[in-house]
């Protein structure tokens, strides 16, 4: 994960938190609890080891160590740790998968991964709004 930008702060959803809904943030967020909904940001997202996240995610960077069910669109990089349990589709220019991670879903990883979505949708992603992921 890249370091936080100067002046950036990290929002943490603790392990005893269950959240349902939509989150939009600027710089960084870490989820240690349960999340069900939509996450939109051009910053970074970290899903901790004990976390369970389901829904749609459109972010800059995402690092997954826990459970994730849903679709991910990343404008930079997706990282799956060896403890990650990912079920869903990934669209990103870069993917790193550690040995031992579970990944089930359709994957489009290439420098042109977001081009197929059309210029308007790409702009939405980069500007922090979340378009629907095509299947």
């Amino acid at each position, binding site marked *: 994960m890249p370091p936080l930008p100067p002046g950036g702060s990290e929002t943490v959803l603790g392990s005893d938190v269950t959240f349902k809904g939509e989150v939009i943030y600027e710089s960084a967020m870490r989820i240690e609890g349960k999340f069900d909904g939509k996450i939109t940001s051009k910053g970074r997202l970290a899903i901790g080891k004990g976390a369970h996240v389901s829904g749609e995610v459109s972010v800059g960077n995402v690092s997954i160590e826990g459970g994730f069910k849903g679709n991910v669109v990343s404008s930079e990089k997706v990282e799956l740790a060896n403890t990650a349990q990912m079920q869903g589709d990934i669209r990103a220019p870069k993917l790193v998968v550690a040995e031992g991670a579970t990944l089930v879903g*359709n*994957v489009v990883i290439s420098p042109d991964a977001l081009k197929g979505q059309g210029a308007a949708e790409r702009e939405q992603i980069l500007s922090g709004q979340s378009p629907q992921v095509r299947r």
Partner: protein
Amino acid sequence: MSKTPARRTLLCPRCDTPMEASVSAKSMPCPGCHRNIRSEDETVTDYQARVEYYNEGRVEVAKKGIIIAEVRVRALVVKGEVKGPVRARQSVHLEKTGKLTGDVSTPLLAVQEGAVLVGRVDAGPRRADARPAEAPLDATPRAR
């Protein structure tokens, strides 16, 4: 005293019939479907377009190597390019220069940053059609 040759258990990539073979065996006929099974570790350095690319050994696709086929192997390392569905009984390693276009099924997947991967991925424990009774693929000494 003669040495006992090390043995290993293989599964036919076509019909999944288990068989015992010497660790040094490069190929053998399947007792189930009677087709030849290659089990020799290979490095692909050139362009190979086939209907199927089956090998119960470890296959490495070098930076300049290209495989276009249905791939069924024990372990696959991709530094070059693979186009086609991939089923690996043990692992798939996609290195930073690697490109894989096709569906992937394997119990162990590792992807380095910079690799290109497009397709459906089914990776994790008990994937790649691993059967519960599947014997370990490592060399085991044969008891007489």
